[in-house]
């Protein structure tokens, strides 16, 4: 696509340009301020004591020795936590546990002291007597009648959540199908591996108003959580200011508030001093939440031509001991289940089950990678069964613009077809197939225009201009390394005819920035972008008004470009924008230019039936991969990877590629190497030696063709692209392995052991015949 602005029919000046991240130099020079770098006067250091069992009663806690240690300012246990102080949307998780503990990461005490070393020493002095209880670690077993209960008050280990839908008539469609595939898939715990570990500093002013510096992706919703905590502490009608420092990675890990944040608040209140809690790497692995692990039962069918007839999926989700956003991932899993490819009859039901394992959270893709693994793996199996080419079956069933899916998603723009073409072009193998080499393809759908999960999907922006042609924009959107600052600056600069360096983006401070629901659901470019654009448009209107007077021209005939306003058909008539601003300011009844805009996308909350247009627009993509399988070791080597995405428009292709590369490598880890290994609820690999994150040496060259469909609702046509990169990676790999050596792996990650075991099984089966 050309870089033409369809609204003006002129070339874009800033949109579509590969502008490096605005904070790149600052980060490379070590000047970026992370939570690790922040020190406040009089600050104390908090540390948390975790329990030693997966499930146990607390018989006795003795903190007297810890309290007596010189330098200790406060020691808290579950007794000190107000009853109503509970975290998560299910409100089942107090920041410090009392009575009993239900997982190894349960917080049982916390300390604030004048140094981290003393705080650590104090933790060692806390004496706790436990009585171990039988634990339950398998969600399917936890559903059985006589299983031990994780929370007795809940009466059952199965959460009361409504994840169930049925559109069309699946039973009938199954009967009428010519081919049906039925399988079971399982997916593991993986974790975000943010290089910047978690941390927070809480402090109260003399009026008991709270300021908290914390690593978050949701300043506004975190503020709400903290206000609730204050209320539980008896501090009503107080103010909370949330300030997010620069963070070293989000990926969904910071979409909920964590115990350490609420504990920092409790300690700061108890000590009347700022209290900082910093996670070390082991804590980061053990006490932050993972991607939701799943057990998936899937049935899919097609007619003799390969047209999909129905999809029937049932999932069991290991909720862990407490409830965070992991338990709501079925709301997003529904999206590929009902709407990836055209399929009229769909059934889905998911149960979240308490166990004594760690609890899960949001992670890039939010359930979509798990569901897509099962859907796209079985689609290949179905194609094979029906004797149809795997690319053809995808083309035949592809989504198309104008579709309304069974869930009521209105597909505005859709470049899935072009994405499949791109993958096919890149992956075609000429000549005879080499032994052990195979290719695989898998597609994706994801929300690309916000996602109305919360009551509001909005984002606000406030824009002001100074006398020198510079802009400050205060956005609700959160930059967490993905580059929202760039996108915001580019959008504003394009609209106002300025340069990117003229735009200062201020974000993630609730005292100065407007409300936003959070950096999730690949929504920031779309929603925060539209908010910034809305504010810029308002200011532009005023500039044009003044310009019209000063240049004696019709405002419709005025153009803002290169920091200048000029008359389109008489470019000699022009004025630098800063001069115009000064003229507006320094005249009788002077005016400084500023504007605000709150953008709430025109998407719908899903009702009881889970129907509704969740997102204003949807992102699509297809991934293709070529692998080589070592048939003697089971090791899979990725040779080539192509990830084609329909992004509406690439506001900044450089950052877009960054998102795709990062997503794909995260997806490759999910597919091949990453796993939180647990033994009876205990994390066994809380380090980067044994948690097999891809290293730079493992990363491969990825081709990332961009399909631009120009979405009419997106800012300059853009859709979201934050998550899609990691969505179809695992099934693309699994399909390629099958293509290479004829074995299919149903359980992630696809380790050499699993591949070799499957190859051996296949060999013994064929020799038996």
């Amino acid at each position: 696509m050309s870089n033409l602005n369809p609204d003006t029919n002129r070339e874009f000046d800033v949109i579509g340009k590969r502008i490096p991240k605005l904070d790149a130099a600052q980060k490379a020079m070590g000047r970026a301020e992370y939570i690790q770098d922040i020190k406040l006067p009089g600050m104390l250091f908090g540390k948390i004591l975790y329990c030693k069992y997966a499930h146990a009663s607390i018989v006795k806690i003795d903190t007297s020795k810890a309290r007596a240690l010189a330098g200790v300012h406060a020691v808290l246990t579950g007794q000190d936590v107000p009853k109503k102080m509970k975290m998560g949307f299910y409100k089942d998780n107090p920041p410090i546990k009392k009575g009993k503990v239900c997982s190894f990461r349960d917080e049982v005490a916390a300390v604030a002291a004048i140094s981290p070393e003393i705080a650590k020493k104090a933790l060692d002095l806390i004496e706790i007597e436990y009585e171990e209880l039988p634990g339950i670690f398998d969600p399917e077993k936890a559903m059985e009648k006589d299983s031990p209960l994780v929370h007795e008050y809940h009466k059952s280990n199965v959460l009361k959540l409504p994840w169930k839908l049925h559109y069309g008539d699946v039973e009938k469609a199954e009967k009428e199908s010519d081919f049906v595939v039925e399988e079971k898939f399982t997916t593991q715990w993986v974790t975000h591996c943010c290089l910047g570990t978690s941390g927070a500093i809480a402090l109260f002013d003399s009026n008991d108003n709270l300021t908290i510096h914390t690593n978050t992706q949701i300043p506004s919703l975190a503020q709400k959580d903290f206000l609730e905590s204050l209320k539980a502490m008896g501090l009503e009608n107080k103010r909370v200011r949330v300030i997010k420092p620069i963070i070293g990675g989000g990926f969904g890990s910071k979409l909920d508030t964590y115990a350490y944040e609420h504990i920092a608040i409790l300690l700061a209140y108890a000590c009347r001093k700022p209290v900082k809690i910093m996670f070390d790497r082991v804590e980061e692995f053990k006490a932050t939440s993972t991607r939701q692990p799943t057990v998936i039962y899937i049935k899919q069918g097609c007619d003799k031509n390969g047209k999909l007839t129905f999809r029937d999926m049932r999932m069991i989700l290991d909720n862990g001991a407490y409830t965070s956003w992991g338990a709501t991932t079925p709301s997003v899993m529904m999206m590929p289940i009902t709407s990836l490819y055209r399929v009229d009859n769909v059934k889905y039901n998911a149960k979240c089950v308490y166990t004594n394992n760690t609890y899960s959270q949001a992670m890039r893709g939010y359930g979509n990678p798990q569901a897509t693994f099962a859907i796209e793996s079985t689609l290949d199996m179905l194609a094979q069964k029906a004797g149809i080419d795997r690319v053809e079956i995808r083309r035949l069933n592809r989504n198309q613009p104008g579709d309304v899916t069974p869930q009521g998603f209105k597909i505005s723009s859709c470049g899935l077809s072009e994405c499949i073409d791109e993958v096919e072009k890149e992956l075609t193998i000429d000549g005879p197939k080499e032994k052990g080499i195979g290719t695989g393809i898998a597609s994706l759908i994801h929300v690309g225009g916000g996602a109305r999960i919360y009551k509001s999907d909005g984002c606000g922006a406030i824009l002001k201009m100074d006398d020198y042609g510079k802009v400050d924009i205060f956005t609700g959107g959160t930059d967490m390394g993905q580059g929202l600052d760039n996108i915001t600056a580019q959008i504003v600069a394009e609209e106002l005819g300025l340069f990117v360096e003229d735009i200062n983006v201020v974000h993630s401070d609730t005292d100065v920035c407007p409300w936003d629901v959070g950096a999730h659901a690949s929504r920031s470019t779309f929603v925060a972008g539209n908010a910034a654009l809305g504010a810029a448009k308002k200011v532009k209107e005023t500039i044009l008004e003044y310009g019209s007077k000063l240049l004696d021209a019709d405002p419709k005939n005025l153009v803002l470009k290169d920091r200048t306003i000029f008359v389109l058909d008489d470019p000699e008539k022009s004025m630098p924008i800063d001069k115009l601003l000064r003229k507006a300011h320094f005249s009788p009844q002077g005016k400084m230019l500023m504007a605000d805009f709150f953008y709430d996308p025109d998407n719908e909350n899903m009702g009881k039936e889970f129907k509704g247009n969740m997102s204003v627009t949807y992102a699509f993509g297809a991934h293709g991969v070529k692998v080589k399988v070592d048939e003697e070791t089971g090791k899979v080597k990725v040779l080539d990877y192509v990830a084609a995405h329909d992004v509406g428009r690439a506001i900044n292709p450089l950052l877009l590629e960054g998102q795709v590369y990062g997503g794909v490598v995260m997806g490759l880890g999910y597919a091949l190497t990453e796993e939180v290994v647990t033994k009876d609820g205990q994390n066994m690999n809380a380090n980067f030696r044994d948690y097999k994150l891809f290293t730079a040496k493992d990363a491969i060259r990825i081709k990332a063709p961009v399909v631009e469909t120009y979405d009419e609702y997106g800012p300059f046509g853009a859709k979201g692209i934050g998550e899609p990169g990691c969505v179809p990676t695992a099934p693309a790999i699994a399909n390629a392995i099958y293509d290479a050596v004829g074995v299919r792996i149903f359980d992630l990650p696809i380790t050499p052991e699993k591949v070799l075991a499957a190859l051996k099984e296949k060999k013994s089966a064929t020799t038996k015949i």
Partner: protein
Amino acid sequence: MKPFKYLSPTTVEKAISYYGEHSETAKFIAGGTDVIVKVKEGWMEPDYLISLKKIEEMGELHKNEATGELSIGALVTHATLEKSLMIQNEYPIIYDAVSNIGSLQVRNVGTIGGNLINAVPSADGAIPLIALDGVALLHGPSGERSAQVKDLFIAPYKTILKSGEILKKITIPTQAPNTGSAYIKFGRRAAMELPLIGIGVLLTLEDDMETCSKARICLGVAAPTPMRAFDAEKLLIGKKINKEILIEAGNIAADESKVRNSIRGKAWHRKEMIRVHVKRMGLKCLEIIKNNS
């Protein structure tokens, strides 16, 4: 992390005498890539770290062209070995092992001596030195002594070194003509990876270029200490080396190993990897011999 004092003697004698002064409260440190991790984690709490880095004689890498003997100072870093053309050409098994240790940063500071004395079953550096019949020169309060590298290890983290003893260097005896050697670290990642299993093979052929006169099959992570698969080696001696006999040797080596299940890998798969890679490394040795002749 408990604070410590850092001493940097410039001679072996001074280092030993420092150790004498502080004995069990002191610890030797070379590159520190194992020591500092342990100190930071609180697994080790020395009051004194005695750095060996300033002892020049321990940092030399030298081949005596007259005798053919190779001498590797204990302080020689993995990166130095990796970059040495002499090592690359004449001791491919050392190159294979050290060039895949950790990351560039770890190889730049980690030493071969530290790798041996840290004595983990997964030490990549130990396997080639055992295969090459390396001899360790030790220097302690009661003077010098030497020991075969293969005999250095008693248990994980435990060597025969006595308190205050320093590993000065490792010598590799002259290699016979028609010798090839190769090592592979089998792991899941391409970097920052401890081996799931490490396999080193060295073969020497007689002048007929077929019959095996010497064989070393050495395994890492296959037992609590690096081990030689003696039965598998024995099988090869006096035999014509081809794929079939290497497969058999691999099977025997797998049986000799004492591999275990761990969170990192299953025993059956480790055994399988020994089978496969004894064969592959054996074939690679033949290839090297052929190319060199």
